[in-house]
């Protein structure tokens, strides 16, 4: 895993593998990281079970005691449960007896979790509380006297919540969630979740590529105006936008944002509306661009990522939690959870639903992101010894005002390389 150093000392020089990652830093990324099963297994150990935090649920998805959601950390099945004391527990969704999946439904409510196979049951904290026929039948069979239920509790995750987002980590020694995120990322999360959320719907996008290609895409503002031609095609005047990129101190997380400079955000919509009747290249229905400055700061777009797999997205009034789920070295899924707030009026909900046309698998400005990772994945054969290039905006990791930069992708690799020890 650490390149040539990992090769057995006795191997003849001619068969010695070249180093996986010869360059220091984060500007050259080995293509082998995108399809090697050994790398995928190492990511599970070092990243997804490592000192990192993973999005599990929105607080509002499990409001009542006993409410649960079955989800994953990386590709590992977990259950997140609202406890009777109002806290949130999470544990592996795998029976300690012989490993059957415990919760088969995506959402539900349970007082205890009973395995369908042999009816071992667990309490809301994953503690084993019942073993069918533990004492045998009529004095025959059963567990040996040495059997101790306490040795067979489900492996738990530590959980923490930020602004209604529930996170979990397998590493009970991981830094506190807020420290992991850092103050700037915390502030930007709070910005788009200032009050209790309400789910507006889900969908799942299947990607025929490694999960990291999607994570990189999210952190890549370089491609936005090049790959996605919707606004250019319809001549939507983007006005003078200012914005920038914030990269957390660890490099792990980022925020990319833009706001309209000086002008009010509706100028864009009004201009499109004027053009709708006269300009053959305009949108026939400019209502798509209509929006509200609901957070009162003029920011019309904020894409935020938390390493490794969470994306929080605001495109005008369309608010989405995206969860990147690895499902194999060359497969991944993105689970899209659209949300609004409990006190939304009908008109605001309608704006969110209309603007949802921009994003997701059928999104005007994002459908390409579902395919572009696969374009890389399918070209990987033969690329094993080569490296991709991330030099836009320099070699460093840090916040920048320019959006023609790959700084936040380098940040991803900084965190990744440290955890993977490659």
């Amino acid at each position, binding site marked *: 895993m650490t390149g040539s150093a990992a090769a057995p000392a006795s191997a003849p020089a001619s068969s010695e593998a070249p180093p996986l990652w010869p360059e220091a830093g984060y500007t050259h990324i080995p293509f082998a990281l995108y399809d090697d099963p050994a790398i995928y297994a190492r990511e599970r150990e070092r990243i997804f079970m490592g000192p990192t935090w993973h999005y599990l649920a929105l607080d509002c998805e499990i409001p009542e005691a006993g409410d649960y959601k079955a989800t994953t950390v990386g590709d590992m099945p977990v259950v997140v449960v609202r406890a009777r004391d109002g806290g949130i527990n999470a544990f592996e969704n795998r029976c300690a007896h012989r490993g059957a999946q415990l919760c088969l439904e995506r959402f539900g409510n349970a007082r205890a979790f009973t395995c369908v196979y042999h009816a071992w049951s667990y309490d809301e904290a994953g503690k084993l509380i019942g073993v069918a026929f533990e004492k045998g039948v009529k004095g025959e069979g059963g567990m040996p006297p040495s059997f101790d239920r306490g040795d067979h509790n489900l492996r738990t995750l530590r959980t923490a919540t930020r602004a209604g987002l529930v996170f979990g980590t397998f590493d009970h020694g991981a830094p506190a969630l807020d420290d992991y995120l850092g103050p700037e990322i915390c502030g930007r999360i709070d910005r788009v979740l200032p009050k209790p959320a309400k*789910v507006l719907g889900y969908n799942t996008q299947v990607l025929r590529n490694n999960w990291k290609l999607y994570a990189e895409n999210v952190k890549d503002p370089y491609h936005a105006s090049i790959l996605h031609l919707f606004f250019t095609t319809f001549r939507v005047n983007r006005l003078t936008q200012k914005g920038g990129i914030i990269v957390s101190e660890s490099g792990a997380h980022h925020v990319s944002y833009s706001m309209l400079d000086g002008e009010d955000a509706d100028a864009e919509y009004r201009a499109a509306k004027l053009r709708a009747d006269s300009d053959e290249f305009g949108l026939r229905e400019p209502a798509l661009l209509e929006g509200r400055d609901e957070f009162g700061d003029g920011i019309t777009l904020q894409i935020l990522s938390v390493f490794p797999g969470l994306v929080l997205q605001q495109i005008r009034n369309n608010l989405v939690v995206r969860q990147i789920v690895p499902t194999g070295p060359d497969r991944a899924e993105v689970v899209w959870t659209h949300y609004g707030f409990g006190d939304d009026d009908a008109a605001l909900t309608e704006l969110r639903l209309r603007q949802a*046309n921009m994003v997701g698998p059928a999104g005007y400005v994002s459908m390409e992101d579902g395919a572009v990772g696969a374009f890389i994945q399918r070209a990987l054969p033969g690329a094993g010894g080569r490296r991709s290039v991330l030099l836009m905006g320099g070699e460093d990791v840090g916040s920048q005002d320019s959006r023609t930069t790959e700084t936040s992708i380098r940040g991803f690799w900084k965190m990744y390389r440290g955890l993977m020890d490659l």
Partner: protein
Amino acid sequence: MPDATTAERERRNGAVAEVTALLADYAACIDADELEAWPDFFTADCHYKITTAYNHAKGLPVGLIYAHNRAMLEDRVVALRKANVYEPQRYRHIVSTPRIKGGGITGGGITGLAEDVIEAEAGFLVVRTMHDGTQDLFASGLYLDRIDLSGNRPRFARKIVVLDSDRVDTLLAIPL
């Protein structure tokens, strides 16, 4: 199904024939890549949405595509032709015989809806063929349709496409 008089059965069968023909034309339009003709299958103030069975059952309103009038469908076609980048691909729709849920054709109607409206549902399968020949069952689901018969041709006043699965492979460019 409650007992029906001969007259009611005739109206229902007439409705089945009307909707079957419309759905056949609709599917052929998409499958033949005649997308410029697709919006004209809808009324000017139509509602068109692609959603999932889960969202639909739970009353969650967000759609993969959500249009509140025909102009939005026209914009989508222009976007597909001029703006969006996706690999060449074709659909093949197989649409079931529709079930008439309400409405009527002539002389009364079945459930008391205006007589120039039919509500119907039909199951569909869509096989997607990529430019390199890769074929997959891309989608299955239900069309929940409200059809307006008052114009010069039947048109969808409302079409809710309810996908059986939450999962969409890669992207959904061409409409369903």
